[in-house]
């Protein structure tokens, strides 16, 4: 009976641990996961059989090693840019710096969506939101 109870405790602890690992605890983990996450701003539409040709789209591949590769369809060609990212928390919000540009970082739908926000510094100027959806690998 005692052995059965101990096994049950271990099983519950393991299940809780797995759950905790599966749900990213902080913003960095939500962003890049254990290795990387691809975030889609606009789905890339490739032209079949034409190599790197495309119609439109933009995706960001955030890696856990703090690098980010942006793949963007620019003038019908796929252009890849690699930059670094870093994160900070000001006590209320998460802020991400990508290649020198800082954005407020917001997650939604339990980490399936993300917003990179450029907050305006004057009221009449608009705040720009860039909404992404995480690509399920």
């Amino acid at each position, binding site marked *: 009976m005692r052995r059965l109870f101990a096994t049950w405790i271990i099983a519950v602890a393991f299940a809780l641990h797995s759950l905790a690992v599966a749900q990213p605890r902080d913003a960095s983990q939500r962003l890049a996961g254990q290795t990387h996450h691809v975030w889609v701003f606009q789905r890339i539409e490739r032209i079949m059989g034409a190599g790197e040709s495309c119609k439109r789209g933009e995706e960001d591949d955030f890696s856990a090693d703090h690098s980010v590769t942006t793949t963007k369809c620019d003038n019908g060609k796929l252009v890849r840019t690699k930059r670094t990212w870093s994160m900070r928390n000001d*006590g*209320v919000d998460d802020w991400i710096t990508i290649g020198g540009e800082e954005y407020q970082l917001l997650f*939604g739908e339990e980490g399936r969506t993300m917003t990179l926000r450029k*907050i305006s510094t004057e*009221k009449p100027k608009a*705040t720009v939101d860039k909404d992404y959806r995480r690509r399920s690998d």
Partner: protein
Amino acid sequence: MDEARKRKWDITLGMFGPVLTVAGILVGVWQFNAGERNRTNLEYQLIEKKDLTEFRRKLWLERLSSYKSVAGLAGEIAAYPKPDNKFDQLVRNFDSSYWGLMVLVEDKNVEQQMIEFHLAIEDYKRKKITDEKLKQHADRLVQTCKESLKTGLFE
């Protein structure tokens, strides 16, 4: 001294005496005018300084009143985050201050926190942030208002 020489001195003094008297009177008048001018300038400067202090005091009181009103609204919004008519009314009142009253009195830091709280309300309505985060933004706005009041009086 002979008579002729004495007479010459009398004539000379008789000629320069009135000139010196007139010159003395003119210098006195000039001195008086200069003194008056300085006194008037000082008085103007004093009045100007007093007016500026009074203007700053009025502005500070206006700022205090606006901050109090906005802090009250932010507090109510944060304490009552239920998307219903009352919440919408509170947000509308906050928006009125955001685009009106506050523009007159806020400094750069308060403006930034107003923008961020304004965005936080929108995020909360779209369920992008929790009510806990909305409260944190409200708290930061009120704290920034408090800091602004501390410095604003002595600027």
